């Protein structure tokens, strides 16, 4: 080399060590340097690494001329300045400014030289007024800045720096590092000793590895560091995963990733951060020990001295060598507050692109924050299945794309992409757990698996795309399809949509479920949806909710003939109370007409902008609901038919509503109309408590009938046979049933009793019905009318009807028994309460035809109903009058033969019913007579209750 500034030839240096053993003192020579040969060219940045006691500092001192070798020669050709000890030579009593003069003169500067450089030194030290305060008042960082400022202003050609970056704050460290890089650019020769291997690696081009006083590796620093890890590494707290192109080095709390010889991470690499008692504790502070180590697997244990938390890291290199599995368990030893935890990876700034399942974007041009804060760049969506970086160019090759996944569901966990500040200048992928308020599970003593991160590297774009297609979160829509044009896709927003010949049939929300648990409603859209398995014609999705032992599994299966089967399983891992399971399929708003096996109707209605929904209760006993578009619109949407095949009775309804919807592609909040088909579990004894295991809660078949099959659609809907083979529950379901032997007949249909005399119906509208007022836990009360319930026929003989009805969201079951006697129908209503429920009022009514014009109470005189309806003030309420009988009469001679007199009798023994006589409103135009009970204690415990006992006499 032409311009060698430091030349060491076969340098040997020994120390004499006195051993005092067993009272004897013996001297032994200890060779700190053994035949070191070194040649450092001008302008080189030269790193010296090695274990403690390898002779690094001694070598520096030899180069500096402080130590004279016992053998060999040292030649140094330029002016040297050293920074071996922070604050050496400082006079504690003197001010910073006085010390500048003092130390500078020790460096050999003349007074004029010092004066010339003084300003610049003061500026670098950034001490403000403290420059005029005694240095004994300085902080470590100030001390270091001042020392560093002086050392570099001596204007040396060669700068020797020992491991000084262990002291001082990060601001100081980075300021000094920046300056060192600046000096490097200026072509100074810098010889640098540090334990911060990444720093040395970044700073120095060439270097040596010292071991026991000898150079065991000399060359490019990258190689030297690699060699160091391979040879000396696994001694303490250092674990190495190697074997393929992707490698990792775990060095006392930080994980460095490398690809071939390029490092992917920088600064602190991958590390853990624990927030406890208001402080943040980095895994770098912890004391690490290797539990197990092999080239493919490392287990380490880190202990914090400050907090009673133990961290256990399991590192494993996958067989294909492109994936590192990083599991972190935290063991809380004793009570301590624990606010959160994060697994952070700092990657090189060379990565220019980031992505998550929803987007793939370039980093901003203004990348790194000037303030000491990090900026988040990824979206705040919490259930991103993975995040990653790509588009980086290394010095020798393009950097592989990296992906971070985290499998463990912990409440409050978010995957984020960040940019650091200017100082660190790194891209950050992190998995962060922020403790939620009132979440005390984190404080629990014991071991918890908090992170199960997978770091994958992809050297080609194709591999990344392939990964993204199979990943639990989705980057590219994936679909199952069958040849006749039906297609089910799961897209990047975790929505599952149905397509027909490339036309979307469902609205953007598609398939949705919800349920109640612990007085809280859980929607599938709030959970973490992952698509798990896709094979031809089959798709499986799981939905998990934060901190819930309940999981839903959805399966979609394409059957023959264009049928899609949607099944929803509830998987509970501990006995859980779940109710009001709901399954919705949200169709496009063009669907405006519905059909069931018994009925059809229209749902076209003007919608307000707000979330208004007018629910059409279909209560189809066969569980069939069909939808078709109002007119055959330009889109040509096919009719659809949904058939609930599950064993439970379900409340089914259709409504139109306006839903808010967020699209990640354009990031706009959009509202969207939907036509929703809803299947809701009715309260029943069996379903209140779910035992451990998986339960099928919904089993629906969706049939798509294209234009030319419109008639099929209707036919299928109206046939008794569902469009698939299998058993059916239908035979027990309510229908139009009638009893009565004489001219008087009692007909039961969907929660209402109708009285017939010959051909004439004495009742109207609601007929004979019950109604109760209940408040739910939100304290919002509403009336539950028997017409809204779903009814099952339990017994039906020619003189007896036994039916059972239940309401959605109301945990009780009503049983009606109607018996036909000679001149009366007995009407008994029982009520079984399944869960404590609030009932304020219970009523039993007889809504009679408007042909009836007068009424009487018991045996008193007849009175006329008023002509007008809508008379709110006209209401006869007999409170506590022990009225047990109400009569209605028709007056006009023309109708008197068709509408005979009826008596409505309450025969309950503990009669605290109040009798009511009133007119219905002008829509119903009916006479209403009935009995009402206001309950004193509104809390009704589970059990069997008499609701009403009465009769209709004729």
């Amino acid at each position, binding site marked *: 080399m032409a311009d060698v500034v430091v030349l060491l030839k076969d340098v040997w240096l020994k120390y004499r060590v006195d051993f005092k053993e067993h009272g004897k003192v013996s001297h032994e020579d200890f060779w700190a340097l053994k035949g070191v040969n070194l040649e450092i060219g001008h302008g080189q940045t030269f790193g010296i690494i090695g274990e403690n006691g390898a002779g690094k500092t001694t070598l520096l001192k030899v180069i500096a001329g*402080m130590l*004279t070798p016992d053998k060999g020669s040292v030649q140094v050709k330029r002016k*040297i300045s050293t920074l071996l000890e922070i604050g050496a*030579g400082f*006079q504690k009593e003197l001010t910073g400014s006085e010390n500048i003069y003092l*130390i500078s*003169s020790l460096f*050999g500067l*003349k007074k004029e030289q010092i004066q010339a450089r003084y300003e610049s030194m003061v500026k670098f030290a950034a001490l403000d007024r403290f420059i005029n305060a005694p240095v004994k008042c300085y902080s470590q960082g100030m001390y270091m800045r001042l020392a560093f400022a002086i050392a570099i202003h001596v204007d040396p050609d060669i700068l020797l720096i020992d491991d000084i970056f262990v002291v001082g704050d990060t601001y100081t460290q980075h300021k000094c590092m920046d300056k060192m890089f600046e000096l490097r650019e200026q072509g100074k020769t810098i010889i640098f000793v540090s334990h911060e291997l990444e720093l040395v690696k970044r700073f120095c081009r060439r270097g040596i590895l010292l071991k026991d006083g000898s150079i065991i590796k000399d060359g490019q620093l990258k190689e030297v560091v690699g060699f160091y890890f391979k040879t000396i590494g696994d001694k303490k707290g250092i674990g190495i995963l190697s074997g393929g192109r992707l490698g990792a080095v775990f060095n006392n709390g930080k994980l460095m990733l490398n690809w071939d010889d390029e490092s992917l991470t920088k600064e602190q690499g991958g590390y853990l951060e624990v927030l406890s008692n208001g402080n943040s504790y980095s895994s770098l502070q912890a004391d690490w020990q290797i539990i197990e180590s092999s080239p493919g697997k490392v287990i380490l244990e880190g202990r914090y001295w400050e907090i009673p938390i133990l961290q256990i890291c399991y590192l494993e290199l996958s067989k294909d060598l492109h994936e590192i599995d990083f599991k972190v368990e935290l063991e809380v030893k004793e009570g301590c507050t624990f606010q959160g935890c994060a697994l952070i990876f700092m990657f090189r700034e060379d990565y220019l692109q980031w992505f998550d399942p929803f987007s793939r974007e370039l980093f901003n041009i203004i990348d790194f924050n000037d303030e000491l804060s990090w900026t988040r760049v990824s979206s705040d969506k919490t259930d991103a299945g993975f995040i990653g970086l790509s588009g980086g160019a290394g010095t020798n090759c393009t950097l592989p794309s990296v992906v971070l996944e985290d499998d463990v569901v912990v409440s409050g966990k978010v995957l984020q992409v960040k940019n650091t500040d200017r100082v660190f200048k790194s891209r950050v992928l992190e998995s962060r757990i922020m403790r939620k308020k009132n979440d005390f599970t984190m404080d629990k003593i014991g071991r918890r698996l908090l992170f199960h991160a997978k770091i994958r590297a992809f050297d080609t774009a194709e591999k990344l795309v392939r990964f993204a297609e199979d990943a639990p979160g989705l980057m590219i829509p994936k679909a199952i399809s069958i040849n006749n044009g039906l297609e089910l896709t799961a897209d990047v927003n975790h929505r599952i949509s149905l397509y027909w010949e490339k036309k979307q049939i469902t609205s953007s929300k598609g398939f949705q479920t919800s349920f109640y648990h612990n007085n809280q409603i859980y929607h599938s859209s709030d959970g973490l949806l992952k698509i798990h398995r896709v094979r031809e014609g089959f798709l499986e999705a799981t939905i998990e909710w934060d901190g819930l032992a309940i999981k839903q599994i959805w399966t979609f299966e394409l059957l023959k003939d264009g049928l899609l089967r949607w099944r929803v399983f509830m998987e509970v891992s501990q006995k859980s109370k779940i109710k009001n399971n709901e399954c919705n399929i949200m169709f496009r708003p063009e669907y405006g007409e519905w059909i069931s096996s018994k009925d059809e109707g229209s749902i076209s209605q003007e919608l307000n902008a707000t979330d208004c929904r007018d629910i059409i209760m279909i209560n189809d006993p066969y569980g069939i609901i069909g939808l078709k578009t109002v007119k055959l619109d330009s889109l040509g949407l096919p009719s659809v038919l949904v058939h609930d095949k599950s064993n439970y009775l379900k409340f089914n309804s259709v409504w139109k509503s306006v839903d808010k919807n967020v699209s990640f592609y354009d990031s706009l909040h959009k509202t969207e109309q939907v036509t929703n088909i809803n299947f809701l579990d009715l309260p029943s004894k069996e379903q209140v408590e779910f035992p451990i295991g998986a339960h099928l809660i919904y089993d629906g078949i969706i049939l798509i009938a294209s234009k030319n099959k419109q008639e099929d659609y209707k036919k299928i809907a109206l046939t008794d046979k569902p469009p698939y083979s299998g058993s059916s529950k239908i035979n027990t379901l309510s229908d139009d049933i009638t009893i009565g032997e004489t001219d008087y007949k009692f007909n039961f249909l969907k929660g209402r009793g109708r009285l017939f005399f010959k051909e004439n119906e004495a009742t109207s509208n609601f007929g004979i019905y019950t109604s109760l007022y209940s408040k739910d836990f939100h304290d919002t009360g509403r009336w539950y009318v028997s017409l809204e319930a779903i009814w099952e026929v339990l017994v039906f003989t020619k003189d007896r009807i036994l039916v059972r009805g239940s309401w959605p969201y109301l945990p009780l079951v009503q049983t009606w028994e109607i018996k036909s006697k000679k001149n009366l129908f007995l009407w008994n209503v029982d009520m079984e309460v399944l869960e404590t429920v609030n009932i304020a009022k219970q009523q039993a009514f007889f809504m009679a035809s408007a042909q009836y014009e007068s009424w009487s109470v018991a045996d008193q005189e007849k009175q006329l109903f008023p002509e007008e309806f809508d008379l709110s003030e006209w209401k006869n309420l007999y409170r506590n009058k022990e009225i047990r009988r109400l009569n209605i009469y028709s007056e006009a001679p023309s109708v008197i033969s068709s509408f005979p007199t009826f008596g409505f009798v309450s025969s309950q023994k503990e009669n605290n019913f109040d009798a009511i006589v009133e007119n219905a409103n002008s829509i119903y135009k009916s006479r209403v007579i009935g009995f009402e009970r206001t309950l004193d204690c509104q809390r009704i415990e589970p059990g069997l209750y008499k609701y009403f006992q009465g009769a209709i006499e004729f």
Partner: protein
Amino acid sequence: MPILKVFKNLISRRQVLFGLVIRNLNERYGGSSLGMLWVLITPFLIMLAISFVFGKIMGSEMPNLPLLILSALLPWFFFINSICESVNAFKQHKDILTQFAVPKEMIPLSIVISNLIIFLLSLAIMLPVFIISNNRVIYCLAVLPLLIILHFIFTLGISIIFSIVGVYFRDLAQVINVGVMFFFWITPIFYSSDMIPKGYAWLNLANPAAPYINMYRMLLYKGDFLDPYLWFFCIFFAVLSMVIAFYLIRLKSNDLLKNI
């Protein structure tokens, strides 16, 4: 010539030496509010104390007794302080040795120079007093610098020797503590050398510091400088101490830092 090389080196690094001297002085007077003024005040205070103790309490009738004592005491302080500080010098200046590539001999040198400065200052303040009390002293001022230089060389040599030996022989500091007291009393400070009984005259010869102290007294108190014997001893001890010092530097300077 290795000796020349040492000198060359020292001269080329005089800035460093300058810094070290300032540092030493700062260490001693840095925190105090009067600072270097103490150097001027101290001799007067000593004079007051002496005249009180000997004049009033002991009732001595020696004329100008305080000046007799002071003329010996000031150079003695210079000498003994230099040595005491040098014994631990390398240990105390370790940070400087490991941070700045300072020639090792510069450490004792800086200490001796610092003490010399203090001595010269206190001497300067006292000189008028000496002249007033004995006007013959004024003729002796011509040879005073020569004595100071010899005394300085001697002190430097002894300081270097002690500073190097002190690194290897840690007990030296304790030995010096005791030795100082002994040498203080066998050195003619509180008495003049002619007060020593005939039988103990060898004491003067065995004490290398004695010729210098006696010489100072001759110059400053008696106003006489013609004593060839004394001059001979002054030159002899100065040269001898420096020869030993250089020998030690050559022998041990490479090894020093490893043993601190």
